[in-house]
């Protein structure tokens, strides 16, 4: 699930649970989530090995 879709789902769920005040926090968390995902290349991933030919 990408960050915009996640955010839409999370806000809708929070509203349904009577927690509309969560919206700005979830928006900030969505920005943080995107930033963390954007850093995948920096932090590496177990499926990517240094000796892979395509790297």
């Amino acid at each position, binding site marked *: *699930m990408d960050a915009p879709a*996640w955010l839409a789902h*999370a806000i809708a*769920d*929070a509203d349904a649970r009577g*927690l509309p*005040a*969560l919206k700005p*926090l*979830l928006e900030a*968390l969505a920005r*943080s*989530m995107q*930033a*963390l*995902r954007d*850093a*995948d290349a*920096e*932090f*590496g*991933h*177990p499926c990517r090995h240094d000796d892979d030919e395509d790297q």
Partner: protein
Amino acid sequence: MTTTKINSLREASDLLQRREISAVELTKACLARIDARNAELRAFITVMADQALADAARADKDIARGRSLGALHGVPVSVKDLLDVAGTPTTAGSHVTPRRPRHDAPVVAKLRRAGAVIVGKTNLHEFAFGTTSDETAFGAVRNPLDLSRSAGGSSGGAAAAIVDGMCYGAVGTDTGGSIRIPAAACGITGLKPTSGELSADGVVPLSTTLDHVGPMTATVADAALMFYAMLDADARVERLPRPAEGALWLGVPVPYFLDKLDTDVTRLFDRVKTTLERGGHTISDVAIAHAERTPDVYVHIVLPEASWYHAPMLRDQPDNYSPGVRLRLEMGRYVLAEDYLRAMQARTVLRRAVDRALEGLDALLLPAMAIGAPPLGASTVRVGADTEPVRAIMLRLTQLFNVTGHPAIAIPCGPGADGLPRAIQLVGHRGSTERLLEVALAVERQITGGDGSVGGGTG
């Protein structure tokens, strides 16, 4: 002997061992201070006067018979109300139904074995989930140095208790800076040991990955004595580390860490560097790769771990939480497992990055907090030309070392123009907390001239 002149745990201990003061006298003095000041400062949630006086009387008998248990024997200390102390509720600063433990947390049990007298349990930011200690069911903790200011958090009551002379050592916890931040805000010393070194059993968790337990005291030597007591109940003065000898090699991590500092932090940090260089130590800039990613990694670990622990209480008694704490816990329920694991992977990379930055160095040197103690209730604060969220700016310089597990210590370095303390932070090699204490003793001696005069001292 008047107790108002006792400025450190070590000093109190020496007087006890020489029998120039009794443990009962010392404990009564601390209890009197709590009685006089706690309504205003709200440092303590539970005061254990009867048990403390009984423990102190027992300590006096033992010391008189030559059966000293070490430097903490008969010394009044406090425990953050996030740790279990048998027979007292563990409120975690909340209206949520408390734990009622039958057993002490291991670090508390070791303090008792070392002869410490527990005078009570200190106030905190609810469930340790904040940096200002103003979201708590027991009233906002006030900074003894300026009652309009926060004492920092989450171990705010512990710091206030030390600086106000209510006890001589305090047990705190630190998940993103909750020992070092209040230490910086109140002008005392706060040690976060290497991850896992002190047991976190019997502690209400915030994040099982990032939680640390550690001491808060007036001086580095006091922190060392508390650390040993909490580690293995053996706090003999002979065990105190000696200040590191010879020239130290310290690394200042740039960029990121020095990018957002108030002018007093910048000025005092530069003064510390100059003092240390004049003392023959070498200071060089170092880089910590990916450091700017720290807040994103941190929140994706702490939020889901905290929310997982609190899920039953959020379901059954949501209105018993402070509104802000409840919202942060609810936010954590939306973090995806994929992103939690991504953050855990990043954690291993950041750990190696700090290890690499430390290669060839005795320690990293950086400010402990980017600002002085903020006004109580503030949600933002001015830092230079920018407005910053209080919570984020307070965590900015400490949280990386919770993510990586490196030992770190905050030491006061003098007051700003506002009269409030500022602090430096030293970060050591993983698994080498004792070496960090040696370095910290040497640095403290250098920047205070040996008399501890830049610190807040005790009341």
